[in-house]
């Protein structure tokens, strides 16, 4: 096992960056395929024979039982090949069962029983020769329910919420005392709504069988658990499932797990002896996959008159499915953010008859910053301090919760440089002072923080007789740029042009990697790739120096250089292709792997940023429009300026959505979400985003991994919504603490103010 000091001490091609490919904003590896519509997403893969089409039917109750099933009409409908409910679905091992003890996922049976535990739960399944026939027949399935009254009213169940399983509040010092003794105090509560991922590509699967092997294409962020889970559900060996996910139209955490589309496609393909495709509709995505649960967050801040925090608390109430335990840890991020001797953080969880809660982009931070970073803004006003200055005064020398040194922390620099670039000095501290035509204009800022992670992963590198390097890894690219950064690492490591690199990912037969999520993807997959690349360099160097026909013969393998597809030792050289053609005409393959350093936990390793936003508020209507937005981020070495920036600005836009529009309203009478399509679930559109920029500070965090990089996929989201909310307050003097800040809510505040 390696230690952080090994990483710090050891040079490698990514650090050296001889060809300058690391950090360069190179175009996406798979970009041409995507923009020409030729990248086959799971539903578009061409199966070996014509597929049948499956359509799922969702429950129209939130809780209860199916007491009668009538599929006669559906079965008789044109083109129908199968109609399944819990009564006749092929047998599957019980939920969670593992025939292979080391499976990372147990059985996930579809159409499991007559029990309904959430609205939209798949309860019937129709397969037909065409999608249209399957859809039409799906409407003919008649289910009779014995419905219970759904328990979904989060606001009314707050007092019943308890500690999430195995968790305790974290208190340092004595919060109550510290708070009571603070001369300046703030105690406010914020609420965020239930949100959906709304990926462009809904979840979809295609499966067929080759003998006893199931070939399944699906849209999934993590390959291995999907492969294991499907094998366990089908009751077959794990090697008998070949799971592929080559292109993914957005994941955001919602595709961290598989759903019944995959199970049913595989079961039906087996039963019918032909390929079967199953996709969620947009409407089905809202209930039928996971969502970010709503939160209520109470923030208490006690400060000295100079702004130093004396007491700090954020407590989060949230909800999950009746059988679940997922907790939106909206308080956790705050533990590493600001100094304060007396600290209290924790969570309360209540189980409801709502669909399954789960992770969504920057789980924890995304919701949590929407409260704390507004609370800091409010506190700054109470203290008569600039919000940037308040944060600087509470900058901790080490992680305030566990005392660990920071691996790197450039939060203050992000805030200072952001303030300067944005023109923060033009902000008027008193709200409602600036007008531009009919708009009241205001500025707001917030800090951003998101943890950084490194997980175990493997990767293989091959070189062929043409000198082409092929990277193979059971990694995924959910639209983030994984293909591209792996190609850059390979090209830089082996000294070949990008055009000489092939990247194969999204396949269960490739060396395993944990996939995409928690912004650990690039660091984890990339570090494994670097390791494999280093091993290949070594193998090539040894091959050359021990080959009497090579001009490099008898040299020191450690001295071999790799550049422009040529390997060299001082003035002796030959092409990589020539060497391989002579010595390994079939090609040469090596593996590499990365593991977290044994001492990684000695440091607090995070990514940071500062958001600055200018909004206009129409004081007549309560409408808000974002005019300018700047994020300055410190997230280690940047692998690709273009894809990283795209991740960061995408996260910032997400923040705009969270502040202004996103949320699924729950109708407690039905236990169902009411807005179910993209005309009703409002994510920002082009016109909602004004001038937008993200800047990445120069940083190398050699304690994070051998490349000194960190994640950027979620950081942009953290704090962005709070900055919008703070700008709204600065524009018009109204605080809305119940997100999203829609015109109706803002109008009430404007009227109350006499505007």
């Amino acid at each position, binding site marked *: 096992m390696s230690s952080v000091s090994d990483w710090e001490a050891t040079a490698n091609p990514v650090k050296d960056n001889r060809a300058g490919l690391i950090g360069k904003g190179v175009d996406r590896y798979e970009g041409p395929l995507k923009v020409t519509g030729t990248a086959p997403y799971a539903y578009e893969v061409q199966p070996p024979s014509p597929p049948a089409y499956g359509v799922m039917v969702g429950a129209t109750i939130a809780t209860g039982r199916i007491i009668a099933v009538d599929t006669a009409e559906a079965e008789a409908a044109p083109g129908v090949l199968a109609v399944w409910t819990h009564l006749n679905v092929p047998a599957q091992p019980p939920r969670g069962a593992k025939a292979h003890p080391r499976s990372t996922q147990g059985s996930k049976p579809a159409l499991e029983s007559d029990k309904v535990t959430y609205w939209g739960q798949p309860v019937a399944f129709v397969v037909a020769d065409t999608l249209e026939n399957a859809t039409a027949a799906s409407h003919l399935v008649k289910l009779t329910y014995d419905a219970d009254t759904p328990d979904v009213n989060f606001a009314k169940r707050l007092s019943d919420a308890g500690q999430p399983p195995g968790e305790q509040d974290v208190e340092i010092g004595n919060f109550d005392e510290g708070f009571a003794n603070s001369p300046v105090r703030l105690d406010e509560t914020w609420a965020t709504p239930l949100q959906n991922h709304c990926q462009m590509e809904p979840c979809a699967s295609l499966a067929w069988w080759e003998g006893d092997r199931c070939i399944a294409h699906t849209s999934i962020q993590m390959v291995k658990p999907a492969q294991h889970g499907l094998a366990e559900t089908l009751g077959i060996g794990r090697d008998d499932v070949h799971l592929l996910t080559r292109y993914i139209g957005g994941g955001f955490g919602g595709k961290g797990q598989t759903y019944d589309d995959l199970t049913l496609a595989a079961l039906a393909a087996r039963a019918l002896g032909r390929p079967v495709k199953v996709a969620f509709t947009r409407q089905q995505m809202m209930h039928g996959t996971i969502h970010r649960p709503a939160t209520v967050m109470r923030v208490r801040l006690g400060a000295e008159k100079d702004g130093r925090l004396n007491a700090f608390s954020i407590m989060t109430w949230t909800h999950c499915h009746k059988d679940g335990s997922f907790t939106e840890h909206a308080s956790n991020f705050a533990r590493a953010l600001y100094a304060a001797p007396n600290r209290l953080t924790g969570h309360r969880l209540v189980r409801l008859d709502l669909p399954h809660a789960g992770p969504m982009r920057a789980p924890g931070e995304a919701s949590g910053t929407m409260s704390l970073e507004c609370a800091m803004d409010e506190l700054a006003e109470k203290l008569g301090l600039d919000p940037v200055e308040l944060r600087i005064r509470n900058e901790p020398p080490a992680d305030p919760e566990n005392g660990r040194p920071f691996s790197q922390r450039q939060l203050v620099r992000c805030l200072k440089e952001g303030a300067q670039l944005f023109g923060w000095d033009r902000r008027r501290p008193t709200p409602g002072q600036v007008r531009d035509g009919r708009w009241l204009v205001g500025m707001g800022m917030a800090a951003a923080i998101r943890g950084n992670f490194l997980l175990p992963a493997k990767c293989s590198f091959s070189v062929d007789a043409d000198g082409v390097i092929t990277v193979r890894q059971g990694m995924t690219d959910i639209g983030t740029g994984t293909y591209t950064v792996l190609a850059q690492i390979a090209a830089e490591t082996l000294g070949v042009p990008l055009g000489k690199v092939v990247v194969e990912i999204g396949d269960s037969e490739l060396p395993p990697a944990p996939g995409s999520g928690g912004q650990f993807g690039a660091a984890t997959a990339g570090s494994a790739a670097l390791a494999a690349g280093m091993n290949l360099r070594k193998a090539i160097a040894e091959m050359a120096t021990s080959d009497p026909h090579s001009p490099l013969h008898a040299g020191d393998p450690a001295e071999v250089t790799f550049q422009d597809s040529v390997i060299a030792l001082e003035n002796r050289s030959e092409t990589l292709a020539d060497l391989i053609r002579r010595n390994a005409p079939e090609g040469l393959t090596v593996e590499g792997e990365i593991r977290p350093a044994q001492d990684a936990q000695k440091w607090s390793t995070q990514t940071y940023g500062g958001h600055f936003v200018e909004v206009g508020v129409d004081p007549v209507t309560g*409408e808000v*429009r974002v005019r300018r937005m700047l994020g300055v981020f410190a997230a280690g070495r940047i692998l690709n300026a273009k894809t990283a920036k795209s991740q960061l600005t995408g996260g910032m836009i997400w923040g705009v959505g969270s502040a202004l529009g996103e949320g699924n309203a729950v*109708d407690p*009478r039905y236990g169902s979400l009411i807005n179910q399509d993209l005309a009703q679930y409002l994510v920002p*559109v*082009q016109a909602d985003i004004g001038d937008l920029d993200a800047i990445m500070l120069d940083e190398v965090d050699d304690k994070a991994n051998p490349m000194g990089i960190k994640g950027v996929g979620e950081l942009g989201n953290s704090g962005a919504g709070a900055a919008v909310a703070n700008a709204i307050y600065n524009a018009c003097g109204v605080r809305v603490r119940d997100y999203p800040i829609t015109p*109706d809510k803002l109008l*009430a505040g404007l009227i109350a103010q006499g505007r």
Partner: protein
Amino acid sequence: MKAFTYERATSVEGAVTAAQAPGARFIAGGTNLLDLMKLEIETPTHLIDVGRLPMAEIVETPDGGLRIGASASNTAVASNATVRARYPVLSEAIVAGGSPQLRNKASVGGNLLQRTRCAYFYDTSKPCNKRAPGSGCGALEGLNRNAAIFGASHACIATHTSDMAVALAALGASVEVVGAGGTHSIPLLELHRLPGETPHIETHLAGGELITAVVLPPPPKGGQTYRKVRDRASYAGGLASVAVAGGQVALGMVAHKPWRAAEAEGALASGASPAEAIGKELAGASSLGRNDFKIPLVARLAAAAITEAKEQGQ
């Protein structure tokens, strides 16, 4: 989607004759009807495509008005030079709706007959008197932030969501209709109905009647403006809108039809301030709790728009 047959009409008469068959429906741009068919909210058995009938012309009428063919695309109308010069409120209203892609495809006739965006209407698992007469109104005690404040009934509280229609209402447009009985003209304000007990019957068109054109009288004297309030900057239905053309005022997304603010117009004519005038109109409004905000919203929005139009007109 239910199976259906399709024909492309080659003449107005042919289209009207074909439309007499039960289950037949016209389709123009299809931007509304196809969505509703996919969700089986609408289940026509026969579609008559009227999109290519020769009724896309926009021509000035002898009296100084404008006749806009029902097949003209929303984009064509909004970008028409005469419309922009003399009826800017219409151009502004159209551009405030949907997205460029939708407006390129959407027709004038289809836009007028677009159906409500009530979330319960769109969710076939929920009761809705408009979609399934007699099933009840899911929105009445539900999440009805966007419900009507004028002319609603216990059977239905939905709003008409066309932006274009609000401008047409302010401009005093009429609709040219061809039916089995021949051609006739309906004032735009009499095209749509209030919900009453039969919210599924939305217009005064007889079965199979085809809208062939919208006719505008000469523009009234004075400034024109359209203001729409929405949750995001584009591609969103309105929470409320107002069209002002001289002394004529219409409100949008407040009722089951475009709402001509006759009380406000009367007050304005007799010298009331914009705020007083709209206050008179809103004396007749009522709300249900979640949509209470619409009353002050309309008051403020309309007063601002009337003032803006006045200033323009001077």
